[in-house]
């Protein structure tokens, strides 16, 4: 995706690797590789504290940021897997919408009221996983490039969501559902717990299991993975299902937050999620991925939004500032990561 810079040669395909790549431990552990991100986040927080003082630094505000981060965070964790495995998924927002709509139809809600709200949750997860399965099959067996396959899913899933909901926002009447997911545990919102759990599980899965190892292999060199006896196609399908599941979880979270299901939910999540993943340091071309980086990417974007809201910047100026800050954050990240991981 990028190209080889002159002096410090650095293409993923080359022998001469960027300095960062030479310290695999630091790189994967997140500590070294992510210094720049940490610094960017800390700087943002300092700006927040200086400009908004206690309003920024309060516990309530931190929870607000985390709750905002939670939904897109869960999607981004799933996206990290798909991108690391050499794919991409544009349909995440649409999957969230479809799952939220399906899980809040009158029929599902009736079921949930009669039995348990777990019915709504399982519906959302199933719908997400099913969409992911279709994406995966199209990519792995239909051999349609991921961009196009998931673009098709984006259109189809949103359309379907509109048809099912008749373009009405469906209000959730199953109170236990809202109470559970809208509540808190030890002072921390359930939504934030879910995010933390998904992130932790994602980290373990990517870095400590054979599944994760295979994900790197498939994304780094699919042919080598195949020759090593990895079932590349099956693994690819699994990655998209995983992301679909994450979208199902995100749908549940969004349903809890809004007490609704709607075909308009999850707008532009694809861009937000990919941006968080890529800023976090995952290679868009596959083979290199970091969950810790993704979490930082998500936090940087959400904190940015929060600081903007607190500071009452003119809306258009916010856009311009956002652009500048993205560039600065990435440059910072590059320079710092390069420095710390150099032996």
């Amino acid at each position, binding site marked *: 995706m990028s190209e080889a810079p*002159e*002096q*410090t*040669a650095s*293409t*993923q*395909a*080359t*022998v*001469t*690797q960027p300095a960062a*790549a*030479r310290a*695999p*431990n630091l*790189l994967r552990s997140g500590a070294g590789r992510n210094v720049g991100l940490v610094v960017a986040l800390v700087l943002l927080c300092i700006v927040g504290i200086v400009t908004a003082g206690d309003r920024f630094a309060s516990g309530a505000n931190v929870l607000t940021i985390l709750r905002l981060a939670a939904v897109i965070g869960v999607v981004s964790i799933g996206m990290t897997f798909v991108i690391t495995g050499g794919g991409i998924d544009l349909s995440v927002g649409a999957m969230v919408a479809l799952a939220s709509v399906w899980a809040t139809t009158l029929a599902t809600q009736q079921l949930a009221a009669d039995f348990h709200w777990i019915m709504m949750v399982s519906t959302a997860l199933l719908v997400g996983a099913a969409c992911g399965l279709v994406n995966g099959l199209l990519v792995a067996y239909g051999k349609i490039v991921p961009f196009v396959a998931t673009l098709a899913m984006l259109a189809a899933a949103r359309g379907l969501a509109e048809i099912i909901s008749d373009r009405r926002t469906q209000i959730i009447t199953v109170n236990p559902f809202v109470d559970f997911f809208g509540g808190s545990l030890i002072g921390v919102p359930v939504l934030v717990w879910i995010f933390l759990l998904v992130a932790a599980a994602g980290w*373990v899965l990517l870095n*400590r*299991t*054979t*599944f*994760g*190892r*295979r994900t*790197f*292999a498939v*994304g*780094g*060199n699919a*042919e*080598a*993975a*195949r*020759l*090593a*006896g*990895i*079932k590349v196609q099956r693994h690819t399908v699994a990655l998209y299902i995983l992301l679909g599941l994450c979208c199902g979880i995100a749908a549940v979270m969004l349903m809890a937050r809004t007490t609704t299901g709607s075909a308009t939910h999850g707008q532009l999540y694809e861009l937000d999620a990919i941006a968080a993943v890529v800023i976090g340091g995952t*290679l868009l071309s596959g*083979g*290199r991925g970091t969950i810790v980086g993704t979490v930082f990417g998500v936090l940087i974007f959400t904190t940015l939004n929060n600081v903007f809201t607190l500071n009452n910047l003119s809306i258009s100026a916010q856009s311009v500032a956002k652009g500048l800050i993205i560039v600065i954050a990435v440059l910072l990240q590059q320079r710092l990561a390069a420095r710390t991981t150099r032996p």
Partner: protein
Amino acid sequence: MNDLLTMTGIVKEFPGVRALDGVDLDVRRGEVHCLLGQNGAGKSTLIRVLTGAHQPDAGTIHLNGEEARLNSPTDAIQRGIAAIYQELDLVPELTVAENIFLGHEPARFGFSRRHQATSRAREILRSLGHSEIPPHRTVGSLPAAGQQVVSMARALSRDARLIVMDEPSAVLDPEEVANLFRVIRGLTERDVAVVYISHRLEEIRQIGDRVTVLKDGATVATGLDARETPTKELIRLMTGRSIEYVFPPRREILGTAPVVLEVADLTRPAEFADIGFTVRAGEILGLAGLVGSGRSEVLETVYGARRAATGSVRVDGRLLRSGSVQSAVKAGVGLAPEERKSQALLLDEAVYKNITVSTMQRFASAGFLNGRAEREAAAELARALDVRPSGVEHPVRNLSGGNQQKVVLARWLLRDCRVLLLDEPTRGVDVGARSEIYALIHKLAANGVAIVLVSSEVEEVLGLADRVVVLREGRAVHTGPAQDIDEHQVLDLVMEGSVA
């Protein structure tokens, strides 16, 4: 019956190419079976059929007397077939240990047991004589030879009954090759069979038991005795001609010829230090040394692909800008890099476009390319180097490894360079084409080009070069005329740092 593997009548077609046209091969337990053939003869394709990576269009495979259908690499792996592929099949982003155990990592309930993987990787690397390679290092950061070692370690990590090695020695220096042979002998002692592919006939003699020769996708001889069969006979079987590659006679270089390339005090910390040499017009300077001695780095730094920490490079007296390929190219320097796939080739592009990429301007007026002139020029060179298949429209990806190497060379032969830096120019090139390349190098030199040559084959360095620089751990330990030193002395120098 002692036959472990019998392949009969294997046919494999690619669109427009019949790569295998009825190949037979039989391998016995515990033997080293050598596969010979010119570039493009079909050796790698046969190997890929054997490992389940390609499905044959016809033919049968018997393993232990039973017919085996190998529908995927997994099938082959399960039947005890492991392979070191010609094109390194590693995942650059993963670590050494992860690559070694790719597809069968030690795990419990799906959780990888990394310590076990690390210690077992270390063990295997040690048995290969490479305990210096750290298991946790990312493979992409290893030099070619290191990667080759990892590839070998991977093949050994499976309890295979048959290990296929597709030109494993192409990037190895003599010491490494000896090491490799030690490992192979260890394997055969345990009754493991090895299929060994190489273009270096002397290796066949050293390690091989029996030989099968392929020509144009068909078996032309099988079961030949690896030690007894005369070289002439092998070459005749492979090429249909009887050539023997000999180094062309030495030319006189006039002491008065102008110095073209002047390298002084070149240093890159941790890679090499204080490298200095000069090359006159028409002179060939050889760089000898072990893998990792920094030869490639020196070449790349001279070329500006790496920035020197200190030191200077002058061409025709003009100082080159450090770290600028542009500046070098403008001054007439060319580099045929070591890693053809990642550093030189545009795999999806046609052969002719790969050849002309550095000389495009010559075929263009006002930026518009004259495709025909381009193709003709490229085709002429391809013919001279015997690139097969002969058309220049094929994507380079579909060429065999040796033919790809010729394409890289052709690129720089097309350009009228003042200085040509050749890094392993005959890597993977067959005997026939090898003599063509030697002749070409001499012709270039005769035309006044200053040449710097890096090769892991000491014989090649000594045979071609006028003067030799011996590198050891990034330092020049010897500089002098090639005729004043012999192979043993060079080997002593590279290993001990002095002549014993």
